[in-house]
């Protein structure tokens, strides 16, 4: 299968001032694109040549896993943003978050902490476990919760390239702005599906 870079669901400047146009030009236009290109090159002539992305993530390792998971992770990350979106969970997801974490604010605190303390490059995730319970997990580098049979609901990229042009070493400032553009409508749709 030849993978293609999915279209961004908004313009490159749509997340300003929280995420700059310049950051998205590199993050989407260069990094995400490079993972797609690398993956297409690496799978040629291997057992994964005709595999879907989720199969690649669950079964591969090394460079194929790294690039495959990074393609998936970035698509999932970019899709969840909308400056004018829904700024908190509603209905069933809201209840589940309050049951699991005590309150929406407490959930935000715990997720922010997971994203802030992940050492090096990686991703913080909100997932649904096999038993239906919500959980916050940290994954290094290209890590993706599908390998643990967890269903991802939302994610925060804490590779430095996600925020360095805008915030430099101030990862907490990036996390503060992350909540301002996260669209809970998208997260709810993932939860309901």
């Amino acid at each position, binding site marked *: 299968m030849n993978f293609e870079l999915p279209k961004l669901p908004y313009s490159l400047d749509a997340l300003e001032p929280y995420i700059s146009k310049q950051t998205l030009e590199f993050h989407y236009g260069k990094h995400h694109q490079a993972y797609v290109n690398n993956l297409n090159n690496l799978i040629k002539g291997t057992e994964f040549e005709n595999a879907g992305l989720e199969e690649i993530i669950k079964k591969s390792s090394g460079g194929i896993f790294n690039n495959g998971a990074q393609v998936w992770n970035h698509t999932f990350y970019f899709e969840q943003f909308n400056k004018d979106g829904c700024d908190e969970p509603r209905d069933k997801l809201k209840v589940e978050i309050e049951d699991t974490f005590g309150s929406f604010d407490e959930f935000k605190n715990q997720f922010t902490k997971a994203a802030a303390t992940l050492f090096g490059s990686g991703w913080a995730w909100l997932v649904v476990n096999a038993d239906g319970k919500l959980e916050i997990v940290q994954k290094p580098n290209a890590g993706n919760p599908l390998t643990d049979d967890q269903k991802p609901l939302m994610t925060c990229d804490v590779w430095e390239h996600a925020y*360095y042009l805008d915030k430099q070493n101030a990862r907490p400032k990036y996390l503060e702005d992350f909540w301002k553009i996260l669209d809970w409508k998208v997260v709810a749709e993932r939860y309901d599906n």
Partner: protein
Amino acid sequence: MSLYIVELLKINSMSFKLPKLEYAYNALEPLIDARTMEIHHTKHHAAYTNKLNDMVAGTEWEGKPVEEIFSNADKVPAGVRNNGGGYYNHNLYWKVLKPGGADKPSGSLHDAIVRDFGSFGALKEEFAKAAATRFGSGWAWLVKVGGKLIVTSTPNQDNPLMNVSEVQGTPILGIDVWEHAYYLNYQNRRPEYIDAFWKLINWDVVSDFFHA
């Protein structure tokens, strides 16, 4: 000297200190820009140093040399390993750089490079490849193992002095490939940063580490 000051000096001498750079932040321009250098030193390196001091305070590792922490890297708390590595690795990084660089290795370092890699060009190629292919954050190293030179890389802030490292020995040259080391100037173009770094290497210092 009052007793108070003596006590103060004692406390200070036990904690890790952010070193001063031996050149100005803009001295490596245009290959490494002043803003990157200043943030890298005053924010990233300073944070590793401060966190390391906080984390060892009141523990069995307080007052211990960082090398002892590294030879127990599998036992110390993750934060001590990570910040200890961040403190030490950046100390080395600033030292092996020099405005304009120094030509090429000479003497017995040169001979060892030719013996173990075939040529100086072959070392450059192997080192650049290790730095470019380290996925995520980390470092690439030229390491002295016994008398032999080996190129390797480590994740995050690990280094070859740690007993968890795949290749263990004395690092004599190290390049930081965390994105914070190059993103303001090179963004996604890590190979260009690696080329720039190579032009700034102070081979006299690397030679000193080789002979130490």
